[in-house]
């Protein structure tokens, strides 16, 4: 609970920072809408890192499996 309470002022501060012009109507549910906008950027960044990391591991796997394949195919 302490964790959340400590987090709340930062959260509300961020919300206030982001509010600008007024529209007549907000959907889906104001709180859900604002939360989504806040966390989506964060999760988008995490997703970019994830995709980048997946690409690196896939390429490394390819390189290693190629080397292993070359070694086993070596007639010697």
């Amino acid at each position, binding site marked *: 609970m302490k964790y959340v309470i400590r987090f709340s002022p930062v959260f509300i501060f961020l919300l206030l920072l982001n509010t*600008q012009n007024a529209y007549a109507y907000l959907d889906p549910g104001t709180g859900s809408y604002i*939360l989504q906008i806040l966390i989506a950027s964060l999760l*988008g960044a995490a997703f970019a890192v994830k995709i980048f990391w997946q690409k690196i591991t896939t390429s490394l796997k390819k390189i290693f499996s190629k080397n292993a394949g070359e070694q086993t195919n070596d007639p010697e």
Partner: protein
Amino acid sequence: MTLNDKQSGSFRDPSGFLFFRDGLLYRQVNTYYKENYDFLIGSGLYDKLVKENLLIPHEEADPDYALSGQAYKVIKPDRVPFISYPYEWCFSQLKDAALTTLKIQKIALDYGMSLKDCSAYNIQFYNGKPVFIDTLSFEKYKEGEPWVAYRQFCQHFLAPLALMKYKDVRLNQLFRIYIDGVPLDLAASLLPFRTRFSFSLLSHIHIHAKSQKHYADKAVKPVHRQVKKFALLGLVDNLQTAVNKITWKAAGTEWGDYYQDTNYSSSAQRHKMEIIKTCIEKYKPRNVWDLGANNGFFSRIASDSDIPTIAFDIDPVAVELDYLECRQKKETQLLPLLLDLTNPSPGIGWKNKERMSFIERGPADMVMALALIHHLAISNNVPLINIAEFFHNTCKTLIIEFVPKNDSQVQRLLATREDIFPHYTQQDFEKNFSGYFDILESHSINESERTLYLLQRKAI
């Protein structure tokens, strides 16, 4: 054609509605939805989702079938044989429904569309798999727009799954009270403190609930900032990870090990199976409901003969194990569902008609009630005449097992209570059921005190 032909749960969406004509199900697509419908088809999204068995296929029907002047098209979707609801699903069924919804959203975004609603009721189990049934739930994605169905996804899937895992698996019954999913403030208050240490649950449930509360009574200046498509994909990906991480191991209820704890000898069990198999082969029912099916052991006699079968049971562990077996064996004709027969699913929602009651979804061609009657008559004090009447409303033919008072399982039920059931006898059973059914066959089960009856409903 009158408005009465409109399907009673299909009225919220201005994009269209379901209706029945000559017993067949159609969906009217309104001109309001024209642009989105054409994009769904033209973009290839419809074909892609149907090919991957994620969306119910449909064919376009005669536009003259339209019920109102707002019609753009009339489509005829494949008919799902039995409509089930999230409060009738076990943990893995709800989880699979959640993952299917997110998979669809990811594909839709790739094709330039997005789900505009994420109701668990849009998923049905069809040929053994969760399938999205609301063809009109897709809208063209506008760059920068947040996901309009995010809140609904959290309420319909993430919160109930978290509650089922971290609190009690029976909490999916909250769906019976909250038709639009579990309110997030309720979920947050019920979930244990440790769920705040999971980033996904902290953000999508706890902070989400706080944010809803914080803004509930405020006239807020809306934000200008947009949600980029990549951020939206990140959100969907995170929800997918969150759902995947919520696991539940089925164990620990009185019925979970039922077939290891019966008073049947293997010969009696075999004999019972043979009698049921013969009855099914002889009467060839179009569909079967097995009531009190436990893990679906006997239901599979019907489903393995390619008969659409529903295996209902009260126990979440038994239904979970049954569903996992169906999934593992890729069974297409068996659908395990949760049901408390002493308090079956009621009609809920607007006018009590948005979601059908259990009885409304019948009658079944054949019902099997094996080792069930003593639980209804003795554990639940329902007189035999009322039980007979219930089955008369539920099926056309009935395979029912009479379990007499001297059976050890009935003795177990009576061990800690007074025997106030002088009329629970085989003669009384036959007498009461004869008022509603013709007795076609009766078979004493070898090495057992029990009798299997095959009954046919009387027209009364």
